[in-house]
């Protein structure tokens, strides 16, 4: 919404009182700043999506296909047959409300339909009417309602106001995962041509070129070459960034934002420095150059289509195993779906660190290891020389990205890396980290400018916790391990907590890493390197960390 960005004062008065009429009677309000533009027809067509047409959420008539109700209901029936999760979650919610104030969108907007339980009821009410006896007989009394165009508009609004972060699932006594329901809801919407552009277009780009911006392979190479030059300038060490190199031991896959966007780019420099320093025999791939999976936000089929490239490329290149960079949704797909969808990866070997000999036997089937797991192992085995004082200009806190936290349980590895890369690390309040972490508010493909207001609202609980450590401990850097976070947290913090910047964990590692033959005066961002004058490169790295971790409130 060009020009009309709201101010923090406006968004910070939230009314948590629901309206007086029943939620079924409250029509969806497609208000600027709270929705995403419809999919670009050309890109939807490129992906062979159904019912491609020109329309916008602001139109009165969404030009639904003639038999849209039939398509949706048959699609729902089909998914009930395919997913026990969906079937079960339709039946067993007791509407206890434990999930209600756990969703960042509800906390930031006060809109009762953003309570996870009601978000699910949007679909459940249709399920009841068409798939349960009580609903057929008792109708509205049993919480059932017919599928109308209005219901579809409501689905569109609220299923694209859920970042599929699964925070609600942590608190639900039955583990009801509203993200599962949102995913099904989005699949149904897409089956009648109601996709959004910031999912469809990157998905089409990833499918075609390998990265979300649609930059062609030589552009990818340029980008890596440029990074190599820049790293040489900063460190005096010229590293290599091999692409599509057959016979490398390890294939490295990261989100494409790492080489096209900032501050992701500094994390990329960190990877390159690290891999060079340990002499890793690895390769990038231009074909599988995107780990981030926009398909996850679209449909199970699309997720599988995009993810397929990684195993296919590992096989073609003949690598032994796969290493993955800092990315949230990418890791949800890699951890929970990849092996099932596109495995078995029996042409690969069980991952073993070539530097330390550690067997990553928890990844023995998927054959894919997270970079934080890999780096922690290097640190624990004393393979890296890290000069923590080089990060003394930052006072760091860590944002657990939703997916590595709640879909992987990757909690301590990044903290271990940070702990060994900087002297000043502070935890945010307990209710807002680890499995209870708050979403950036822009995940799952809704981090667009037109959706700005909703993003700022949804990100408010996260920003609020950052503000706390900013004020108490002077935190000025928020580290995270997710490409979407790196893209969306900077505007969020600028809005709510000016003065805090965002970095990747491997940017901190890259800064602290003492490389053989290096000569550094600036950090990876080109800022003067702190501690550089005093550090003679000996001893300091081995000192145990002075603990400044606070876990109050």
């Amino acid at each position: 919404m060009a020009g009309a960005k709201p101010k923090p004062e406006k968004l910070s008065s939230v009314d948590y009182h629901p309206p007086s009429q029943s939620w079924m009677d409250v029509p969806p309000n497609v208000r600027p700043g709270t929705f995403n533009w419809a999919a670009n027809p050309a890109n939807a067509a490129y992906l062979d999506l159904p019912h491609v047409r020109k329309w916008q959420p602001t139109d009165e008539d969404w030009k639904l296909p003639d038999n849209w109700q039939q398509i949706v209901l048959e699609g729902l029936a089909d998914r009930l047959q395919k997913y026990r999760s969906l079937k079960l979650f339709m039946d067993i919610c007791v509407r206890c409300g434990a999930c209600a104030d756990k969703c960042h969108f509800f906390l930031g907007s006060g809109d009762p339909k953003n309570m996870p339980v009601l978000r699910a009821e949007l679909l459940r009410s249709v399920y009841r009417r068409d798939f349960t006896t009580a609903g057929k007989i008792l109708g509205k009394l049993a919480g059932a309602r017919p599928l109308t165009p209005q219901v579809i508009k409501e689905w569109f609004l609220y299923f694209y106001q859920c970042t599929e972060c699964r925070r609600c699932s942590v608190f639900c006594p039955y583990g009801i995962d509203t993200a599962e329901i949102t995913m099904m809801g989005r699949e149904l919407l897409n089956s009648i041509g109601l996709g959004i552009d910031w999912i469809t277009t990157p998905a089409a780009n990833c499918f075609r070129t390998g990265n979300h911006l649609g930059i062609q392979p030589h552009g990818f190479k340029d980008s890596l070459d440029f990074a190599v030059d820049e790293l040489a300038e900063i460190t005096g060490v010229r590293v290599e960034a091999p692409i599509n190199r057959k016979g490398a031991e390890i294939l490295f896959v990261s989100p494409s934002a790492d080489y096209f966007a900032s501050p992701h780019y500094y994390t990329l420099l960190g990877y390159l420095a690290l891999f060079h320093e340990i002499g890793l025999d690895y390769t990038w791939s231009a074909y599988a150059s995107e780990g981030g999976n926009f398909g996850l936000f679209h449909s199970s089929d699309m997720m599988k289509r995009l993810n397929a490239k990684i195993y296919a490329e590992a096989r073609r290149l003949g690598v032994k195993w796969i290493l993955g960079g800092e990315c949230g949704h990418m890791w949800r797909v890699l951890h929970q779906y990849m092996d099932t969808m596109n495995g078995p990866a029996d042409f690969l070997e069980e991952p073993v660190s070539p530097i330390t000999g550690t067997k990553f036997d928890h990844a023995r089937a998927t054959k894919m290891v997270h970079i934080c797991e890999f780096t922690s192992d290097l640190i624990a085995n004393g393979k890296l020389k890290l000069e923590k004082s080089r990060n003394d200009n930052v006072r760091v806190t860590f944002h657990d990205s939703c997916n590595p936290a709640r879909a992987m349980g990757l909690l301590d590895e990044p903290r271990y890396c940070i702990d060994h890369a900087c002297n000043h690390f502070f935890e945010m309040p307990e209710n807002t980290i680890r499995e209870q972490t708050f979403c950036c508010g822009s995940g799952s493909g809704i981090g667009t400018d037109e959706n700005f207001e909703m993003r700022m609202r949804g990100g408010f609980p996260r920003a609020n916790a950052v503000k706390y450590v900013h004020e108490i401990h002077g935190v000025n850097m928020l580290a995270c391990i997710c490409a979407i976070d790196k893209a969306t947290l900077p505007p969020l913090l600028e809005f709510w907590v000016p003065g805090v910047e965002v970095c990747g964990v491997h940017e901190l590692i890259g800064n602290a890493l003492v490389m053989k033959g290096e000569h550094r005066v600036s950090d990876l961002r080109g800022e003067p390197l702190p501690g550089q004058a005093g550090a003679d490169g000996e001893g300091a790295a081995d000192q145990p960390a002075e603990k400044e971790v606070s876990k109050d409130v």
Partner: protein
Amino acid sequence: MRALFSLSVVAVVVLLTIAAVATSGGRFFVGTILPYAAIATFLVGMIYRVLHWARSPVPFKITTTCGQQRSLSWIKHDNLESPHNLWGVLGRMALEVLFFRSLFRNTKAELKDGPRLVYGDARWLWLGGLAFHWSFLVIFVRHFKFFVEPVPGWVSGIQELDGFFQIGLPIFYITDGILLAAITYLFFRRVVNPQLRYLSLAGDYFPLLLIGGLATSGVIMRHTSLRVDITDVKLLATGLISLDPVVPESLGAVFFVHLTMLSVLLLYFPFSKLVHMAGVFFSPTRNMSNNNREQRHINPWNYPVKVHTYEEWEDEFRDVMKAADMPLEKDVETK
């Protein structure tokens, strides 16, 4: 409104029962036919539900991890919150089913001026839920004494423990009080909290009121002048389970109201949210282990999708790749 509606349904159940027991046909109906129908519906319904869920596969392993995964040997793994093996899963489920682990995590968020979100403990729901379910279970078990002769030792044991404080005569069972208090809390919570009221359906108030009525009628029968003769209750109960029902004359309206409410509860059970009792065991986010990368999970309906193969990709970009000196599979001349 929805609460009032549910209340009137419960009232109608009570009144109909009272009217019915005035006639001998009615007594026979609420004393035998209705309980049989209720038990049959409950059993068949619940089995149907469970099979209905079980018929749909679990295509992906979608554990919600609430703790550290098992990864490097020196990183402390939380096997209860992020289980990687069967023991962990069993432990996690036991914590969930017996102690409502997830609800115990509950917090409430409040927006203060600043603006600042502050979080407080919100364990009342956990406590209320736990108190309600456990006392219901104990009361249920206590009722075994009506069905079996001799009464098994553990049943009387529970009963004695329950009457431990020896308040009143006949002894007041603690669980009766806890159940009534918990259910009152759970009901008023829904009515008073605006958000909960907003999301509650008639089906959320109805079981609370019904169970409240069930417990109240039980307490009345035990502690007021409307007291019933236990031997007659036992006669009816054993008659029912031996499929040779008798409806003793002495049993009055309160008893039948109690029995009818129980029957209605059983009838209602399989068609309502109360199926969470069985459903909780099936939840894929809780009953699966987080060993996705260690052990392959099979999706029974996995099927091939259209992908962009490497060959197609290279064909499309060969020229630019060649110009950039990137490795190629097929170095064919194109113009």
